[in-house]
C-alpha cells in the first residue's frame, strides 16, 4: 500500500460510497420522521453505525482475497459457537433469544453466518477442479456446510434464517456452474415439496402467516393487519406522498414496526411513489456496481464471493420490499441501509466490505484466453 496521503483517498471506491451514503441518508430521514421528528432513538444511531461500518468496510477492502480464504473456516467455527451460545443462553433464560448483547451492539450470530457461508461455499468451488463440477458428490460438502447452522437456527426457531442460508449456498453453487439440470429438478422438487413442508414442516404460526398472505383481509386485526396497514400506508401516499413528517399511518401507530421491517411503508407514505422509485433506483445502482465488480474480477474466487455477497444483499432487499407491498408473507427481514437495526447492517456492510475487497484486488487475467 502506498503511504502517500492523496492516493488512498483517491483510491477509495467513491461510486459505491456515494450510493450507500445516499441510501443511508434516505434511511435516516425516514427514521427521523418515524421517531416523531427526532434523531433519537433511531436516525442518529443509524448514521453513526453507518460511519463506523463504512470505515470497517474500507479497511476490509484493503485486505487481499487470500485473507478471506484464510479466515473462512475460523470464522465459520466461531459463528457456529456463537449460535450454540445464544441457543444455550436462550434455553437458560427461558426465551428464544437470538442475539448477544455486546453493549454497543447486539450481535445476531445467524446474521453473521450468511456472509460466512458464502465465503465457505466459494472457497470450496474455487478449489474444486473444473471437471469435477458435474459430479453429484459436490453436494455433500454443500450440505455439510449447511447442516449445523440450519439445525441451530431452526431450533431457535428461525426458519427464515435457514432458508436464507440455503439460498446463499445454492446461489454460489449456481454461479460456480453446477449443472442446470439440478436446478430444474430442484425447482420441480420444491414445487412438490412445498405443500408437504407447509403441512408437516411449518409450525402453526408460520402456516398462519402463509395463509394470511394469500388473504390478508381474512384477519384484519391479527397477522394480516401488518400487511394491510403497510399497503394502506404505501397506497395512501400517492404520487408525491403526504409530506415529510405528515404520515398518519406511522405516526398514529397503525403501521407496526414502522422503523424496522416496514420502514419502506413509512417512507412511501410520506414521499410517495417518487420516494419509492428513488430508493429502488439507488438499490439498482448498488446491484449494478456489485455485478460489475464480480464480472471485472479475474479470479474465480473473487467472482464467486462478490456475486454471492451481492445475492445475499439482494435477498434482503427483495424480500423486504415484496413483504411491504403485500407480495410476500410477513418475514422479519429488514431493508438494508434504511431499516433501523445494527445486526443486519453489520452483515450487509461485511458483504459490501468483501465486495470492495474484490473490487480492489481483481487480479490479473489468467488461463488460456489471457
Amino acid at each position, binding site marked *: 500500500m502506498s503511504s502517500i496521503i492523496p492516493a488512498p483517498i483517491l483510491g477509495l471506491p467513491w461510486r459505491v460510497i456515494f450510493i450507500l451514503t445516499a441510501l443511508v441518508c434516505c434511511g435516516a430521514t425516514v427514521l427521523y420522521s418515524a421517531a416523531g421528528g427526532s434523531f433519537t432513538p433511531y436516525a442518529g444511531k443509524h448514521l453513526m453505525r453507518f460511519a463506523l461500518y463504512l470505515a470497517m468496510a474500507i479497511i476490509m477492502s484493503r485486505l487481499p482475497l487470500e485473507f478471506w480464504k484464510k479466515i473462512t473456516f475460523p470464522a465459520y467455527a466461531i459463528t457456529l459457537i456463537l449460535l450454540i451460545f445464544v441457543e444455550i443462553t436462550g434455553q437458560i433464560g427461558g426465551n428464544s433469544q437470538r442475539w448477544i448483547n455486546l453493549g454497543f451492539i447486539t450481535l445476531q450470530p445467524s446474521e453473521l453466518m450468511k456472509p460466512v457461508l458464502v465465503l465457505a461455499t466459494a472457497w470450496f468451488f474455487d478449489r474444486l477442479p473444473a471437471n469435477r463440477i458435474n459430479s453429484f458428490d459436490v453436494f455433500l460438502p454443500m450440505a455439510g456446510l449447511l447442516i449445523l447452522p440450519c439445525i441451530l437456527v431452526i431450533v431457535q426457531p428461525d426458519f427464515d434464517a435457514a432458508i436464507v442460508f440455503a439460498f446463499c449456498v445454492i446461489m454460489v453453487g449456481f454461479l460456480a*456452474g453446477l449443472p442446470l439440470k439440478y436446478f430444474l429438478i430442484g425447482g420441480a422438487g420444491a414445487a412438490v415439496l412445498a405443500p408437504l413442508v407447509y403441512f408437516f414442516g411449518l409450525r402453526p404460526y408460520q402456516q398462519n402467516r402463509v395463509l394470511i398472505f394469500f388473504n390478508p383481509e381474512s384477519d384484519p386485526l391479527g397477522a394480516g393487519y401488518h400487511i394491510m396497514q403497510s399497503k394502506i400506508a404505501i*397506497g395512501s401516499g400517492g404520487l408525491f406522498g403526504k409530506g415529510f413528517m405528515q404520515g398518519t399511518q406511522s405516526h398514529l401507530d397503525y403501521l407496526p414496526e414502522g422503523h424496522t421491517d416496514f420502514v419502506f411503508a413509512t417512507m412511501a407514505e410520506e414521499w410517495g411513489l417518487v420516494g419509492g422509485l428513488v430508493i429502488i433506483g439507488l438499490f*439498482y445502482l448498488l446491484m449494478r456496481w456489485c455485478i460489475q465488480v464480480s464480472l471485472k474480477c479475474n479470479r474465480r474466487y473473487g*467472482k464467486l464471493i462478490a456475486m454471492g455477497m451481492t445475492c445475499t444483499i439482494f435477498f434482503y432487499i427483495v424480500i423486504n420490499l415484496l413483504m411491504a407491498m403485500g407480495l410476500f408473507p410477513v418475514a422479519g427481514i429488514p431493508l438494508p441501509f434504511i431499516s433501523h437495526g445494527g445486526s443486519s447492517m453489520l452483515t450487509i456492510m461485511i458483504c459490501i466490505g468483501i465486495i470492495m475487497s474484490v473490487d480492489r484486488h481483481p487480479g490479473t487475467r489468467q488461463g*488460456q484466453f489471457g
Partner: protein
Amino acid sequence: MKQERPVSSAQQEFTFTRRTMFVGGVQAAFGLLLAGRMAYISVAENEKYKLASESNRVNLTLVPPRRGWFIDRYGKPIATNRADFRVDVVPDRLVDQDATLAQLSRLLSLTPDDMERITREIKTAGGFQPVQIAAGLDYESYSKVSVRLPDLPGVSPRQGFSRYYPSGAAVGHLIGYVGTVSAEEYKKDKNPLLITPGFKIGKDGLEKMFEGSLQGAPGAKRVEVTARGKIVRELTTKEDTPGKPVQLTIDIDLHNYTARRLGTESGSVVVFDTLTGDILAMVSMPCYDPNSFSDGIGRQEYKWLREDDHKPLLNKSLQGLYPPGSTLKPMVAIALQQNGIDPEETVYCGGGYRLGNRVFKCLGTHGAINMPNAIMKSCNTYFYAMGNRIGYDKIAPVAKLLGLGQEFDLPFPSQRYGTVPDSAWMKKKYDKVWASSDTLNATIGQGYMIASPFQLALMSARIASGRNLIPNIIAGKRKAPDFLPFLPEHLALAREGMNRVVNSAGTGARSRLPFPDIKMAGKTGTAQVRRIEGSQRGQSGAWKYRDHGLFVCFAPVEEPRYAAAVVIEHGLGGARAAAPVAKDVLTFLYDREKAMAALTALEAGWGGTIEERMARNLANFNAPPPVSALASVPVPASAPKNEPTASAANATTGNSER
C-alpha cells in the same frame, strides 16, 4: 452446455458470466415488478387506500343529544341533565374481560352489586353495545381511568350528560326514568345513536311517552386517534340539538312537599286545579329513585324495591285501585236529589239498616238524620235506605259523569280505570241479577265499586267546580270546560255536606285548615281490605289487613280552587290517616312556611327526609343490623313474612281487572 463434457476453467468463467447476467436480469425483473406494484398501489389504488388511511385516522363519534327537560307549570326543573364523567366498556373490544373489570373495580371502587350488574349487562348486551361501568364520576376517578387507557382496551371514559331528577324518588312514578337501549330495541331500529355510550331513552312514565320530542338530534365529533384508541386531537365538532322541554301542569314544589308529607306511609295524593283540570300534584309513595334507575340499577337494590310490601314499583295514583268507601257519599247525594229525594227528608239511624233478614251496620247511631248531616256524619244507614229506594242503576250514571270508572287520555303507559258496577255490568260480567245488597255495598263505596286515587280526586274536583273537567298533565291553554248536567243546588248540597264534614261536627273536624278565612271541605272514607269476620273490623292486626284510609276534598269552600284525593293504604281510617295529609297539602298551597313547619316536626319523628330514610333502609336490606340495633332504627310498619297473598284481600279488590 452439455454437462457430460469435461469442463475447463475458461468454460466455467463463461458460465459464470452468463449466469451472473441471468441473475442480474432476474434482479432487474424483480426491481421492475416492485416499481410496478408500488405504482399500482399508490396511483391506481390511491383512492381506496387514502380512504382506508382516513378511516384509520379519523374516528367519528356521535355526541348523544342532551335530553329535553321536564319543567313544572312555573318553569322549575323536574328532570334535567347533569354534566358528568362516565366510563363505559364495549364488550367486543375487551381483550381480557376479567382483568379489565378487576382493574376498573379497583380504580373506581365499585361495589359487588355494581360488578354483578356490569357482568349481567355485558352478557345481555349485543357485544357492540356499550355497557356503563359508572356514571356521575368526579374528575379524579375519570382521569384515573383515562391515563391507563392504553392498558385497558375496550374501555371508554367520556364526558357527557346524564339525566338528573332533583326531586329524586318524589317524581319517580310521575316522570318515569331513562335507561340504556336494550338489544331488542336496537334490533328494531338500527340507529347508531342508540348504541352510543351515554345515550339513554325513556323507559317508563312521561320519559317514555314523550321520547320523540325529548330526544333531540345527536352531534358528532371527529377526532384523530392512534391505533390504540388514544385521542390525538379533535378535528371538527358538530353541536348536538337538545331535545325540546316538556312543560307539565305539575307544581313541583307542591308535588315534592306532598311526597314528603306522605312520610313512611304507602299511599297516593292527587291534586287538581278545579278551574282547568290541571294536575298540580300526582304523588305515589314510596317510590324508587329514578336517578338510580337511570344509572342502571343494581340487582340488590332492585330486589329491595320488589320485596317491599309498600310496593314502591307501583304507581298507585293511576294503577292502584281501592274501594272508595264513604268518599262516594257526596256523589250519591247528587244522585239522590236528581231522583227526587228531598235533602231535608230524614232517615232514622238506629245503628244499621235491615234488608230482609240481614242488618247492614252503620258506624254510629245517628237518630233522625237528613242528607247534609248524613254526609257530615258519614251515616251509612241514610245512604243504605235512600240508595235502596232509587236503586244503583240511577246512581251509577252520576258516578260515571264524575269520572269514576272512566278512561282518560293521559300520557302514561299504564293506567287502570276501576269499576262502576250496575245491573247491566253484573249481567255481563257475572251473569247474575243485581241484588239490593249489591246496591247497599256500592252506595257506601264497597263491594264491586273500585276506583283509583286519580279518579277520586277528579270526582272531588268535578263536584267542587260543577264542570266536566278533563285532566291535563301537559301545560297549555285550553278553553274552559263545560258544566256538568247537574242542578247547581244539588251540587251545592253535596258541597255543603262536605263543608260540614270538616268545618262542623263531622268526621274530618280535626283537619281544618289553619286559616281563619280559607276553609276546606272534604269527605273521609275507610275501605275494608277484607270481609268483616266476627269482631275483626280491620282496625287492628297485621298491616296488610288493615283498612285503607281515604279522603277527598276541595278548598276554599266558597269558591273552590283546588281539589284533592288522599289514599293511605292500610291507614286504618280516612279521618285518622288521610285527612291530615290533605290538610297539610292544601295548607302548603296557601302558606308554605306553615306547611313546612308541620312537615319538619313530622319528619323528625320519621327519621329524616325521603333520601335519608331510603338510604338507611337500603343499607339495612343489604346488611341487616343485629336485632338489638334494629330496635333503635325507626322502620315503617312491616307485614309478617311467609304469608300467602291473602285471598281474603282479593275478595274486595279482586274485580279490579278490566
